[in-house]
């Protein structure tokens, strides 16, 4: 397939890595909020 490059990154793996990092960040932030407000 000719169209296999994402427009915003070098390759798809960069976007997948960003997704995983975003998930980790959400969990850490939510964990902080849970603890801070309990």
């Amino acid at each position: 397939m000719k169209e296999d490059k994402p427009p915003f990154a070098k390759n798809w793996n960069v976007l997948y890595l960003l997704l995983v990092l975003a998930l980790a960040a959400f969990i850490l932030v939510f964990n902080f909020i849970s603890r801070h407000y309990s």
Partner: protein
Amino acid sequence: MSIPDWIILVLTIGFILLYGIWKSRGMKNIESFLLADRQMPWYHVGLSVMATQASAITFISAPGQAYSDGMRFVQFYFGLPLAVIVLCTTFIPIFRKLNVFTAYEYLENRFDQKTRTLTASLFLLQRGLSTGISIYLPSIILSTILKMDVTYTTFFTGGIVIFYTVYGGARAVSYTQMLQMFIIFSGLFMAAWMVVHLLPSHIGLQDALHIAGKMGKMNAIDTHFDLNSKYNIWSGLIGGFFLQLSYFGTDQSQVGRYLTGRSLTQSRLGLILNGFIKIPMQFFILLIGILVFTFYQFQTPPLFFNANEVNKIEHSPYQGQWIKLDSAYSRAGEVKKERVTELVSALHSGNRGAEDSAQARVLQAEFVSRQIRSQAKELMLKNNARADINDSNYVFLSFVTQHFPVGLVGLLIAIIFLASMGSIASAMNSLASSTVIDFYRRMIRKEATPSVYLKASRWSTIGWGIFCMIVALYANKLGNLIEAVNELGSLFYGTILGIFLVAFFLKKVGGHAVFLAAILSEVLVFTAVHYELCAYLWLNVFACLAVMLLALLLQLFIPKNKANKEPRNQRPD
């Protein structure tokens, strides 16, 4: 609702519907009707995928869920970003390469017709029932504001969605969904701002969150592993991963959305957009529910949020007892308000001991209020054994209609309605796709002109619309609807996902083995549900693994049937 609210409601919904119908004119074949000619850019795909998942249930039930159960529901979405990665690397490239209309077409290619038919049937059953539940919610909204029986409002809501989906097809769905998502996001921000604004002047956002936290509602992360706990980080990451993978990878209502993408890249980017936005969006919606909870600590909430049920008991022989409970609840509310105010002072003083004792007093007051509410529910059941005693779906709606200013009420109701229209229309379009492609074109009329299939798609949409309306009439027994829909999905998603994963990764397994494994796995799922062996998210994991393991095992004893090795409908790209 006031007249300005009605004007805003009718204008907003009318404008969106006309826009969708105008954008979808000139359709001649099922490629247009079912997949919008596969011409959509990534942001259309992404917003359409989000709007399909975000029904009225998301905006009405989710705040109610947070109000009664706290923030822990957000963990349900943790598997989504991981599922998106697997979808982008495996599912989407295969579906696009084979140029399929429905995900189930691929299964005949890989296995045989019976496996395709079984999987499509499981999908139709599950999606038909879920869509019925989705129609129920906008119907109760209308029934609440019009004070009309929910049966009539169900027919009215169902009728509008059927007309719009039959006329406009996937293109109307996709175009209006993009506009809807913009309106929905702005509505959500307005609702959040309004809730904070309605809090007493001495209570800021920080205080509101502290109060909710001290009352056990800020439980966004639970790291304790427990198979029977509905939401913890493990069930969210593992069970949620399997559920989301199955939902986005094998449920035609979603596959149909990203197959509208102009290219593989556009489809992938659309899903990745969803992977980034979904969790914070859901957190934000739940947070609105938490703020509503805090608001009701300073103003006594209604004894029961479902006004229709209250109306029934107020006109029954139990009226006297109800009035007594209602005034006891108001008094308990006043006591709680004083104690919450003391808690805020303790929080501001920074004295840990004072904080703890104030917290204990608030929790005790909360316990008294809860006891009175339980007595009220018992009384409702005494009056009518079929009374709907779960009012969490009505919490946010009741709050909006009673406390929001004129104009904003109409706009928010319009938003909730639009969210339902988008997701119900998508679901009906997908039900029609699968019925026509996997059954009608495959088994009844193999060769016909495009207009015949287009006509069949429209009739099929009408048929499913009527089925969903009938289901909606029976949906009042299901408790909180956002949970009910996901619990229902979990009965079938694991098995469907298992079939697809066998197709992708276990090349040695043939049609007979996977077909039998899928049936056995469904038997196991229903046994597990009957004996309450685990929380529902885990069913997705166990059923999927059961299909894969059983298929491998059965393949040792069953000769492999001759599968069609060459992919059909190869795409030019």
